[in-house]
């Protein structure tokens, strides 16, 4: 199902009609130079022409934050709203008009701090919007306070001695909140990011894509381990449906299950082979949770890719059905009769 276009009512356009430039608005992009946000913008603009959505059917919604400026730079409909509420406003738009393709760009503060509640309720309702979380583990726009994804002990403007709180893991949280599509990517890996954006779009229901995004002003290098040439291969695990979990330089390592525990094994020295490895299944929620918890263990690589992609009816779809059925089953659709109610009387 997830391989199918998610909104049949959207008229397809010839995909050759658009180029990425068609999605760039006339506004100057106002991010710091070097900011990871540029990459996400570029990949979205590059991916869209291949998705067959008409420009006028696209709506980008955002809260407040550096990443939340995103809609201004897209030549589509856009709404830059208030801090933390992008998901509710997007929900309102989508429920009001399911024919639109609704996207949310949000930050770790916007989505997970002030907006955490809406995030979780959007996921469980499975409203068919596409959420891109720009996770830079910092509050960019307000100049460098720690965020709910900042690591424990992180020094920031508002934690000069280090934070005393434990971060939220966006993928685990989304799993616990009944998300139906959960994926993760990195600003510095444009190809993977484009693929993930596409998958995000293709899933019917709330799609959640976390993008690790470097804030080179207030939290530079937060993801260096996963983006530096020397370290990234040994620290990033690309997960793919039905494929064994291999990674590392020359794909020499893999993930094996040892009872309940995932361990890294070397598949280059003959002791283990690819056949011993855990094969990923993006329909398996428990497995997704196991992988999302890799972050608790520094011995394990960080997984990116589609953690979960399962089917469930969407909120707005069921609502439309409920309305259609109510209309169909009604023997009286007269509003005048509604006004009259069931116990009116006549005065002559």
């Amino acid at each position, binding site marked *: 199902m997830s391989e199918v276009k998610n909104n049949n009512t959207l008229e397809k356009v010839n995909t050759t009609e658009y180029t990425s430039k068609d999605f760039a608005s006339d506004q100057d992009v106002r991010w710091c130079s070097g900011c990871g946000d540029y990459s996400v913008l570029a990949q979205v603009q590059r991916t869209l022409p291949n998705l067959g959505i008409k420009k006028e059917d696209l709506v980008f919604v955002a809260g407040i934050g550096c990443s939340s400026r995103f809609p*201004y730079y897209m030549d589509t409909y856009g709404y*830059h709203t208030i801090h933390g*509420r992008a998901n509710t406003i997007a929900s309102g*738009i989508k429920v009001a008009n399911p024919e*639109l393709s609704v996207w949310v760009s949000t930050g770790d503060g916007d989505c997970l701090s002030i907006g955490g509640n809406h995030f979780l309720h959007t996921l469980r309702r499975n409203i068919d919007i596409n959420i891109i979380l720009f996770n830079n583990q910092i509050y960019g726009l307000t100049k460098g306070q720690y965020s709910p994804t900042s690591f424990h002990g992180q020094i920031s403007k508002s934690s000069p001695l280090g934070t005393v709180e434990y971060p939220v893991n966006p993928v685990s949280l989304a799993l616990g909140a009944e998300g139906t599509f959960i994926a993760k990517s990195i600003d510095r890996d444009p190809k993977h990011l484009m693929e993930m954006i596409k998958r995000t779009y293709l899933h019917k229901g709330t799609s959640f894509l976390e993008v690790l995004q470097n804030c080179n002003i207030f939290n530079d290098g937060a993801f260096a381990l996963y983006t530096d040439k020397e370290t990234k291969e040994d620290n990033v695990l690309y997960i793919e449906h039905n494929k064994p979990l291999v990674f590392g330089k020359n794909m020499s390592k893999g993930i094996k299950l040892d009872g309940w525990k995932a361990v890294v094994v070397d598949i280059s020295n003959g002791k283990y082979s690819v056949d011993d490895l855990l094969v990923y299944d993006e329909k398996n929620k428990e497995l997704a949770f196991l992988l999302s918890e890799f972050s608790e263990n520094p011995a394990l690589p960080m997984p990116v890719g589609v953690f979960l992609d399962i089917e469930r009816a969407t909120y707005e779809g069921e609502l439309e059905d409920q309305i259609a059925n109510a209309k169909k089953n009604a023997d009286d659709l007269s509003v005048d009769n*509604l006004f009259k109610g069931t116990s009116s009387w006549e005065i002559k």
Partner: protein
Amino acid sequence: MEEDKSVLPLPLKVNTSKHSSNFKPEIKSVADVTIRFAGDSGDGMQLTGTQFSDTIASYGNDLGTLPNYPAEIRAPAGTLYGVSGFQVHFSSRDIYTPGDEMDVLVAMNPAALKTNIKDLKKGGILIANTDAFDSKNLRLAGYENNPLEDGSLQEFIVHAIPITKSTVEVIKDMGLSIKVAEKCKNFFALGVVYWLYSRSPEHTFSWIQEKFESKPELIEANTRVLKAGYYYGDITEIFATRYEVKPAELPSGAYRTISGNEAVALGLVAAAEKSGLQLFLGSYPITPASEILQYLSGYRKYGVKTFQAEDEIAGITTAIGASFAGSLGATSTSGPGMALKTEGIGLAVISELPLVIINVQRGGPSTGLPTKMEQADLLQAIYGRNGECPVPVLAASTPVDCFDMIFESARIAIKYMTPVILLSDGYIGVGSEPWKVKKLSELPDITAVFKTDPEGFQPYSRDEFLARPWVKPGTKGLEHRIGGLEKQNITGNISYDPENHHIMVKLRAKKVRNIANDIPDLDVTGDPSGKLLVLGWGSTYGAIASAVENQRAKGRKVSHAHLKYLHPMPKNTGKVLKNFKKILVPEMNLGQLTKLIAIEYLIDSIPFSKVKGLPFKASEIESKIEELLKTKD
């Protein structure tokens, strides 16, 4: 009485032969009666009151109701704070209130007697359920002696009736549990009152049939009990007099009773129909506003979308999203929820999107008195946001007026591309009155124009009403971006330009101020000038109208004006006010409208505050009027 048989398909144990006995109580015609049903929260008083008022209404009387119940779902039986009451005032004249003093009190237990007897007229009728006056209940109500027996109720006509026993008796052959059987006792009391006021229980019989459709034993039990209560007057001959209240002279047409909350729900449907927009309500349950969400969630077949949000912030912001998408967005709430919507309203103001916000006010501050009425959110509605953030504020004055004013709110929201706040309150929201049912065709059209032509399109260009264009996403060539940062005049781009900000702040204010050109003048009931004007807004309407009518009937020179538009106020308001020497402003707050009058017209008005969770009595306002007309100054 014969017609009763036709509506009664069930065998009845009640001996109907007594029916034609010689006993014939005197039938006295009265103009105006107030009855209060009071009992435990679990005694079904709200239901009893509703049934009675529906029946009364169908006889063509004008009426007003006042439900009054505790914030607990079911407070423990017999306690003072667990008492639930429902007052019905009906009349052969036009009336405006649920009545000041009662003619009849039905007290289902001692606690109900204790908390309500003070409002019973001298010489009024008290119907008490003697079975509930046992030692435990007397103690819980704080009675040392049984008031039914100690002579303390001499000023009233007391009818002590073993209601519970009679109820159980009449259905004892049915094999129902005692608990279930006793639950029917409110219908016995209702039957007695129907008889007393010469009203057939027919309406309630049908209601019982419908309600218990799938439980025939309950149909039978409740019907029997109601009938037994009804015949009790005949059989026992304890009442010397029956009463009759002639129908009021109402314009001809179809009528129904309606509460303010239901009227809001219907008014929203009406506005959606007349504007051709889809209605979207984003809301979070809260007393006493939840019914608006509940009614609308039942209107799926009319295409209504309701979204029960995770909180009030999501309630308003989903509605804003829906408006952005081209629907009529609305959100309903009460006090604490209104507080949470503050930031969202600001977004709607700067985004200039239509949005209807309904605040069914309740007692505050904070959680306050959730089930009680109050009018203390007026200044919040007008000034309670960060920044210069103007929003039109309207107020409904009666349950029926809720229909008209929500329709008007939607009209203004759409025409001016602005959020609009409608203030209702727990009194008119939950209270009900007869409504001469409106037809869609009688209502004015609301024109919602969506911009579709890309030619020269600017998101913040303005029409003659200073409204910006509304564009439905999905419209080709009109892709654009809006948001909560200050925007450049006309283009809508982000702008930090100092001059532009000043222009925009003034533009937004002017747009709202200009609405004064588009609303009716403030009407005066009574002379257009004189010594005293009683100025009100919102649900004090009934009490003020009654008081002024009564006082004028006594020849006193006093007039009444009622503001339905609080921001902006009608253009003639200043002129109206300046025609009077004194202005009395009764409010269920500490004088919020007097503050607005000072701001707008530098006029000193006299606040008359009642912040008790209960509406004004007409008599309270009358005393105040008399006092003011007496004093020299």
